[in-house]
């Protein structure tokens, strides 16, 4: 408590810490220009004055360190509001981890640490200096300017647009990495810089700026996502990963309505995606479908959505009587029943509808208004592959889903949902139509997943029951939880991380479920509110300690004595 003093009185120790951090950052910057290895690995990091991969990442970290270290002094006018102390401390830890892992990577790839050249060692020294400096300033109080940081509107808008562009570049770059080490080290770099900036409370400012220019942010993000295929120059693999990510994200946002807003834990949500996919497949004209009729896709999509919504109503109807954990189990059971039913409706054990475990295969490509999704099209000189077609279509659907989510969230309906999540009985006592809203959440979420499912069926070209098992529901839930319940940005981030990692890292894909399980446990333990915390932060997951502490004058005793 006593540390809350004005930052203008920088102590000698802090001054030293800042200088050390500055030196560390500078060394990291310089190291990027030096040779890191005697072997030409990782895009050739052995050449001097030509930074690539690992060298560039080190320079990025170094740049961040320099900016943070100078923020209280030289850059005070521009960056004085940054909370440099904790930021540098986090950056120091991260930089050390990064350089250590880089050395390990060089050792593994080039055959021993002996092959690490001066640049890598200088980077390590820089990281250690940064670590030491960060440790000294970690308790440095926040500058008073911070509390009124609100830049001019143009600066804010430019920043937001720049960030969207950076995100696009980062995504394109990450997807382009074939080397697992480089990919991992790149993600680590992003994570380190991100954490440091979060610690430095940069995101608070960004959050404020984003809140003030929400439309700019949304448009910027979608523009970046829209431009993404044009950066890929016909790479089918990357585009197909991106399309999978989008389908996953769209479904997760639908689930987010149910779980994040209305607080209903749905463990069978994948069944709705499956329902849509089966509708899409059955009416696709595939030879293994038992129904020959093929309506226009928009009709099929609507049917898929409505069928899923109907299932959603059925799954949701027990919410009148069941809630909490029991509801989660009911939804899980529904999900399993769906999968088993699709498995058994093969003509032997039941009516022939789904072709049983073999599923419906050879689903033709989508064709909307004469636009064939199976063909490559050249737009503005860039070839857009099959996957890119689906990607852009899914992007459109995702945009719609985001719009629906955002508008519902910020409306009477959304407030009703959150009220139910917070305290169902109180919501009811305040006149909220609890049962109706719960059904709406289930049916609405299911509808969105159903529509996404119809596209997925065409994109995957086959639909089988085991694509829609419980684990997939758990995965969706994990995306929501990891990203941050009730948020859009968070859930998209969660979906990207969960889908991108295993696709990009072959060795990782074997361990993907193991790590996923671990991730759930760790997240619940240390950051239950997810990577991107909601404005209505931390939902019902959090301990009450903090609110108790926040209730300034009234002690918990009085509160308890009342119950």
């Amino acid at each position, binding site marked *: 408590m006593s540390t809350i003093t004005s930052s203008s009185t920088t102590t000698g120790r802090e001054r030293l810490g800042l200088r050390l951090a500055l030196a560390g950052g500078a060394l990291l910057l310089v190291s990027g220009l030096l040779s890191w290895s005697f072997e030409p690995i990782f895009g050739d990091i052995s050449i001097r004055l030509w930074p690539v991969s690992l060298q560039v990442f080190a320079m990025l970290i170094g740049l961040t360190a320099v900016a943070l270290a100078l923020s209280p002094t030289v850059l005070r006018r521009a960056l004085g509001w940054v909370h440099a102390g904790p930021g540098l401390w986090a950056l120091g830890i991260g930089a050390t981890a990064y350089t250590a892992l880089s050395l390990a990577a060089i050792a593994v790839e080039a055959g021993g640490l002996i092959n690490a050249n001066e640049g890598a060692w200088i980077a390590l020294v820089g990281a250690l200096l940064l670590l030491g400096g960060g440790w000294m300033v970690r308790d440095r109080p926040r500058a008073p300017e911070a509390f009124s940081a609100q830049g001019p509107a143009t600066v804010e808008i430019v920043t937001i647009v720049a960030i969207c562009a950076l995100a696009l570049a980062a995504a394109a770059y990450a997807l382009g990495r074939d080397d697992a080490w480089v990919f991992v080290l790149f993600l680590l770099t992003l994570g380190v810089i991100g954490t440091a900036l979060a610690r430095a409370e940069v995101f608070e400012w960004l959050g404020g700026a984003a809140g003030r220019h929400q439309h700019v942010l949304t448009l910027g993000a979608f523009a970046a996502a829209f431009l993404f295929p044009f950066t890929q120059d016909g790479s089918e693999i990357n585009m197909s990963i991106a399309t999978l990510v989008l389908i996953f994200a769209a479904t997760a946002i639908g689930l987010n309505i149910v779980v994040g807003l209305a607080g209903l834990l749905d463990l069978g949500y994948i069944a709705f995606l499956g329902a849509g996919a089966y509708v899409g497949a059955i009416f696709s004209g595939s030879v293994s479908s038992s129904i020959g009729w093929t309506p226009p896709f928009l009709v099929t999509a609507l049917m898929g959505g409505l069928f899923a919504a109907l299932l959603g109503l059925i799954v949701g109807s027990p919410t009148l009587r069941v809630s909490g954990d029991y509801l989660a189990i009911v939804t899980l059971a529904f999900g399993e029943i769906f999968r088993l039913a699709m498995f058994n409706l093969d003509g032997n054990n039941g009516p022939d509808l789904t072709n049983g475990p073999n599923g419906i295969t050879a689903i033709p490509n989508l064709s909307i208004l004469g636009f064939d999704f199976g063909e490559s099209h050249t737009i503005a000189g860039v070839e857009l592959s099959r996957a890119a077609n689906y990607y852009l279509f899914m992007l459109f659907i995702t945009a719609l889903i985001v719009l629906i989510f955002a508008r519902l969230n910020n409306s009477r*309906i959304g407030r009703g949902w959150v009220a139910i999540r917070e305290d169902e009985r109180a919501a009811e006592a*305040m006149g909220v139509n609890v049962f109706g809203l719960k059904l709406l959440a289930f049916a609405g979420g299911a509808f969105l997943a159903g529509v996404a499912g119809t596209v997925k069926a065409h994109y995957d070209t086959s639909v089988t029951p085991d694509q829609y098992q419980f684990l997939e529901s758990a995965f969706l839930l994990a995306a929501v939880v990891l990203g941050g319940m009730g948020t859009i940005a968070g859930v998209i981030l969660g979906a990207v991380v969960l889908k991108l990692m295993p696709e990009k890292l072959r060795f990782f894909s074997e361990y993907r479920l193991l790590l996923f399980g671990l991730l759930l446990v760790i997240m619940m333990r240390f950051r239950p509110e997810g990577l991107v915390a909601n404005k209505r932060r931390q939902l019902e997951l959090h301990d009450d300690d903090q609110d108790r502490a926040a209730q300034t004058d009234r002690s918990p005793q009085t509160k308890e004595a009342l119950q």
Partner: protein
Amino acid sequence: MSTAAVPHADAPSSPGRGVVLEARNIVMRFGGLTAVDDVSFQVHEGEIVGLIGPNGAGKTTFFNCLTGMYKPTSGEVTLGGRALPPRPRAVVTAGMARTFQNIRLFGNMTALENVMVGRYCRTSSMALTSILRGPKFRREERESIDRGRELLRFVGLDDKADHLARNLPYGEQRRLEIARALATEPQVVLLDEPTAGMNPRETEEAMRLIFRIRELGMAVVVIEHDMRFIFTLCDRVLCLVRGALLVEGSPAQVQSDPRVIEAYIGGSEDDDISADELTEEDVEVLHAEGVDVEPSRTSARSENGR
């Protein structure tokens, strides 16, 4: 602001005004325990009615019966002459809202959002309207926000609109709950221990607030253990003991009723103290002692309190 001094309310119940809320023969049993035992009462327009009784007397349970949170074992509630079905939503829509003894705000919503939830039953935009943002939606949303801010100002929380409810100090949470209840545009407001845990200054403020609610034309029923608060505030006081209505009358009558005092001492056989000698302070002191005397379930079952 206008109510500078708190007037001492010894005005008797005003028979001239119409009955808004009426409960007839409410009984609520939990297994063998009769928590509310055949209670009837009436509330007139613009009246402030106090409900007192020792801990476990069934006051909160009675509120729950009135608001449909519990379906009473038997008995009937009418609001403005019309029978209320025992469903919370129907009760709110009909015009009766409540607060809770153990505050039940929506902790992760802002103060303004909390109040706006109270507007839920007075607005009607459904999903599609909300997505398309038609003119109706925008008008309703605008109104809800304006009304919400107005109510926050009314309870003195206008500067806290964007704070999360769970971060508000205790006294403000209580006031926010009242604002949320008022947002439902009720004719009758039920307040369950609105000053519990408040300091004297806040209690004073709460009292003013309740007078101002009355000035808005609503009737108020308030449960309290703070006798001075009840006797200053209320036009009429009811005392509940072991689920049954023991005494009903003006504050002065109830205050001096020996049975009330006896009830608060917890059914002690000690006859040395005569009720007439007890001052208001004493009642409070006695009450403070009585807090510890929980009427046991067996006695609540075997006796009917009279």
